[in-house]
């Protein structure tokens, strides 16, 4: 083959690119996307990812419901979402094409694996005829047709792997092609493969061969007409970065909290999508002194954590909506016994089993009020994958300082999504050493710190501090069982005052944009990125719109009411049926416009922008 004339054509510079990899759930699309992300991260791009996969582990091959997708947006500037519509779509089979083609931007690059477009594949995707024969496809998109199966078999024929196993490397071949198109080095993925398949030389050889073949094919064949692109590093704040998924960031935040407090970390947890990755991540931190206890059920997950908290550990339980429901009785016990505990709810589509792999924010009101009795606890929410680190750290700090359970809300979109995380520098994180109570002189288990109202944390094994706690109402100060009506009312008020007191230490709220105006877009949790994108664009168009995003859902920030008063209207976008909107109406008697979405998918910037434009004309 003669090298194409266009080989040394200059690279085009792009501000940003959105790629979506789509294939069968067994095609390795999540892996491919993750590798592209890590490579782009090391190049210094800002990025955001959106993995979108079915609940079935290996759905029947070639079916529409078995399509697994991974969207990555990489950029030369600061970005907050994985992008609305992809510029590039890699479709490994007809089903992936059918599901994802409607999202591809007009004129976008469409890479199709023709090796999987046989009559049976078309039938499984409910295509009457081969869509690749439709001339409009080539008119509307930059279509690249290649038999990736055949190319992979060719590339791997010397690896020693049988053809069935060798074919599984086709995702690496596609990845190699895109690395050439977007001027990325192979080294990050090569190093990863060498580590992953260290004990399997044939598998390693086949994967490396496929990756490199993809790169060579893209460079030397005419399929891309030699068109190559570059996306420059983003001007992120100075520092050392790594790429993190939200669930991994949550785990890191909890380990950091254990280190900064000087306590061992104990996780009691039961596997549940999409929270299990926090358990997996923490299970690897054995040499950090982390205990992970995979309990027999959700209730045992929180109850072992409560027991460990009584023993003096920084105790955590992690779950998703259905599991949070199962834990609610024990959350009441943690409130009554006033033990520190972090409860992480990685929200998913509900109710019931709902949409286990899809995202939603519909547990807010359960987190705030979904318990028996008067049962307040601080509730926080993370706003981006990297922010999960900071939110988890703060949740743990509040729990330990105030001797209270704290609920941290993230969601499937944050937990599975990834973005660059600026690593805190040495000394940037302030230690908050925790000392258990040791003084037996007139010790009373429910005598409170006058400032925080926290009770002393006296742990078993400490001489002279033997005491009993439990779910029955406690007498003020002594902690004895007490049914006195006035005491109960007093204790309810004390527990509430303690939790409400947490708000005193919040930093002042920061409004993005002017401090007053026509419209405030108020959000919480994972909608941050799409709202920011929409507000930026509306402001560029001259609209008087600002953004406020809440970290603390309970207690609400003391300065929130004043900010709300300075705007004509308030828009609250959330992935539920208006739960924060209800809270704001109820707490501030303020009318708000609720923008809701419950499709198991995050808001696009365009959706939020359209609502802003509708409201402001």
């Amino acid at each position, binding site marked *: 083959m003669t090298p194409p004339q266009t080989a040394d054509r200059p690279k085009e510079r792009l501000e940003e690119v959105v790629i979506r990899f789509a294939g069968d759930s067994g095609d390795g699309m999540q892996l491919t996307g993750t590798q592209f992300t890590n490579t782009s991260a090391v190049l210094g791009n800002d990025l955001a990812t959106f993995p979108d996969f079915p609940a079935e582990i290996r759905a029947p091959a070639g079916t529409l419901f078995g399509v697994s997708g991974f969207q990555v947006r990489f950029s030369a500037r600061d970005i907050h979402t994985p992008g609305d519509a992809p510029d590039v779509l890699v479709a490994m089979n007809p089903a992936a094409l059918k599901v994802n083609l409607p999202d591809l931007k007009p004129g976008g690059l469409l890479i199709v694996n023709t090796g999987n477009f046989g009559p049976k594949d078309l039938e499984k995707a409910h295509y009457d005829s081969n869509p690749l024969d439709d001339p409009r496809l080539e008119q509307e998109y930059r279509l690249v047709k290649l038999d990736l199966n055949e190319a992979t078999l060719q590339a791997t024929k010397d690896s020693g792997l049988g053809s069935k196993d060798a074919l599984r490397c086709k995702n690496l071949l596609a990845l190699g092609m895109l690395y050439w198109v977007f001027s990325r080095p192979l080294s990050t993925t090569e190093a990863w493969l060498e580590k992953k398949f260290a004990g399997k030389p044939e598998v390693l050889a086949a994967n490396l061969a496929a990756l490199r073949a993809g790169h060579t094919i893209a460079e030397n064949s005419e399929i891309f007409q030699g068109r190559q692109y570059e996306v420059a590093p983003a001007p992120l704040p100075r520092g050392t970065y*790594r790429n993190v998924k939200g669930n991994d960031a949550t785990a890191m935040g909890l380990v950091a909290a254990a280190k900064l407090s000087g306590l061992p970390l104990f996780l009691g947890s039961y596997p549940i999508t999409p929270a299990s990755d926090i358990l997996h991540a923490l299970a690897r931190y*054995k040499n950090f002194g982390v205990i992970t206890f995979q309990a027999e059920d959700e209730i045992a997950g929180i109850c072992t954590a409560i027991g*460990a908290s*009584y023993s003096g550990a920084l105790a955590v339980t992690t779950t998703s909506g259905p599991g949070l429901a199962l834990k609610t009785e024990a959350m009441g016990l943690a409130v009554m016994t006033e033990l520190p505990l972090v409860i992480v709810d990685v929200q998913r589509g509900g109710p019931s089993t709902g949409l286990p792999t899809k995202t939603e924010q519909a547990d807010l009101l359960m987190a705030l009020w979904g318990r028996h009795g008067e049962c307040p606890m601080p509730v926080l929410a993370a706003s981006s994958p990297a922010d999960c680190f900071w939110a988890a750290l703060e949740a743990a700090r509040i729990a330990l300082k105030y001797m209270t359970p704290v609920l941290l809300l993230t969601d499937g979109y944050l937990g599975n999504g990834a973005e660059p995380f600026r690593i805190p520098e040495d000394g940037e994180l302030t230690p908050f050493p925790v000392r258990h109570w040791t003084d037996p002189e007139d010790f009373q288990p429910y005598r409170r710190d006058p400032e925080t109202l926290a009770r002393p944390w006296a742990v078993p094994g400490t001489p002279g501090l033997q005491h009993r706690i439990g779910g029955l109402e406690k007498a003020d100060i002594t902690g004895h069982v007490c049914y006195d009506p006035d005491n109960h009312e007093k204790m309810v008020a004390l527990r509430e005052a303690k939790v409400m007191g947490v708000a005193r230490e919040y930093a002042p709220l920061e409004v993005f944009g002017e401090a007053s105006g026509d419209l405030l877009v108020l959000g919480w949790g994972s909608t941050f990125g799409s709202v920011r994108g929409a507000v930026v664009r509306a402001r560029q168009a001259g609209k008087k719109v600002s953004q406020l995003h809440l970290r603390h859902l309970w207690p609400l920030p003391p300065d929130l009411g004043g900010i709300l008063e300075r705007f004509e209207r308030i828009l609250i976008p959330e992935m539920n049926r208006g739960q924060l909107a209800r809270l704001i109406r109820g707490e501030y008697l303020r009318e708000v416009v609720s923008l809701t979405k419950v499709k198991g998918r995050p808001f696009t910037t365009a959706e939020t922008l359209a609502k802003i434009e509708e409201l402001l004309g």
Partner: protein
Amino acid sequence: MTTTTSPVSYKKKDFESGQEVRWCPGCGDYAILSGVQQVFASLGVPKEKFVVVSGIGCSSRFPYYVDTYGFHGIHGRAPAIASGVKCANPELDVWVATGDGDALSIGGNHIVHAARRNVDMVVLLFNNRIYGLTKGQYSPTSEPGKKTVSTPFGSLDQPFNPINLMLGAGATFVARTVDTQIPHLKKVLAAAHAHRGFSFVEILQNCVIFNNGAFEHITSREIRDDRQVDLRPGQPLVFGKELDKGLRFQPTSIEIVSPEEATVWNPSGRSGASAYRISMGDERGELPVPIGIFRDVEAPCIDREIHAQIEAARARLGEGTLHDLFHSGDTWQVGAAD
């Protein structure tokens, strides 16, 4: 932080909390409480090491009355709470007080998994075959046909046999004793404590209000020597007032024989097959009811294993630091490095 340890010579009253005990007059729980306090005083363990955990029910008020660390939990969850207490700090001496409803109904999942994991703790199951605190409903150990407020026409449920349930769950120490037989109770509890691992003790306990006399056919003074056989490790299976009868394991049955012919009891067999057979009794009810130690075998305890795994990881990788935490993946620099 433990800087000093308490003296380890105690009397029973050192374990009395001073809180007013609120069980019904005549309840079997009083005798059990007294027996446990005596045993605690005799073990040579500093009192601050004891943690008594319970669930919900009459028996679960137990922690309030013992002057140790105590945790009155929620219904059925005591084994889970206790597992957390023990796994976070294996130096503690953890005891669970529970009942037949608490442990075997609402908490059934937790007790079998605590047994399977061999968490080093002693579980005292007060079995009175009735729900007391909720006023008299039948329990998962009630006999079929039992008429109660919730089964006015007789219960249709088949009961659990707590002993063979726990044998099936892999409990490494399984025993039975009786609320009114204090010397036996103390002996069994001391053996349960000496066992390293999950120790399960069923205590036949009388509820004077809702199920009075539930175990009269086994425990009344006049007949109990003939109706009970004490499973003593290394001793022949003999019973009767004059110890004039014995039990012998046959291939398909257990027969009453002379004391000389009695099988010598061995609770340490790995399979637990003999324990299972004797716990099942016989169809005609002719065999005496076994009390004492059914099973006593050594096995790794998860609470120690967890910490051993952590220590092994530390030895291999070094103590993890914040710097290690943050720099474990691919990293890159933005802007000039210092």
